[in-house]
């Protein structure tokens, strides 16, 4: 079974400083990996996805993630945090189910706090 582990449940940064949200994955084959963001009382928005093309993936709002097979990691970064980045971030792995469905397995989430 595929799984992801988010190493930090809470991350706090100052506005304008870099963001690093850590995620390790477990998969028996080359995985499809995603980062989703959830702002308070909102739905889930796709930030970026990795599907075996370039290992450095650029997403929306200045976020990017690097797939490192040797480290089984898919960490999310942003050079400079903005107050609007405060949200819950989920690392997600996809597995293909017989019958035609992509099953997304979510990590436990990392709450990002951005301080002035």
């Amino acid at each position, binding site marked *: 079974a595929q799984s992801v582990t988010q190493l930090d449940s809470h991350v706090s940064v100052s506005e304008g400083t870099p963001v690093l949200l850590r995620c390790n994955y477990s998969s028996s084959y080359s995985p499809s990996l995603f980062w989703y963001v959830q702002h308070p009382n909102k*739905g*889930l928005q*796709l930030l970026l996805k990795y*599907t075996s093309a370039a290992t450095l993936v650029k997403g929306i709002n200045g976020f990017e993630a690097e797939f490192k097979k040797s480290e089984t990691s898919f960490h999310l970064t942003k050079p400079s945090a903005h107050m609007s980045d405060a949200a819950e971030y989920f690392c997600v792995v996809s597995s293909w189910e017989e*019958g*035609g*469905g*992509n099953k997304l397995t*979510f990590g*436990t989430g990392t709450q990002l706090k951005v301080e002035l």
Partner: protein
Amino acid sequence: DTAVSQTPKYLVTQMGNDKSIKCEQNLGHDTMYWYKQDSKKFLKIMFSYNNKELIINETVPNRFSPKSPDKAHLNLHINSLELGDSAVYFCASSQATPGLGYTFGSGTRLTVV
């Protein structure tokens, strides 16, 4: 707007009642899903339908019954509601292609009192 829309947004009901949550997508996707987000924000898949056919059915009580009248709709009916059913329920859709993410609805916050 192209989207996944679910109704209602909020649902407060008493224990023992039966309630339904509706979901519709106009993205032309083949597959639709229901996810449950608990109070600790953990998201877990409940069901998945591909073109009206059930393909994923996780360990969910029989009180939960999904219904897909066509591939653009996936409704969730819950019988005999319990306190532990209180959660946010998200509908989502995707194409039936490996490696794709989902488009999520905005969620339905169910509170059982």
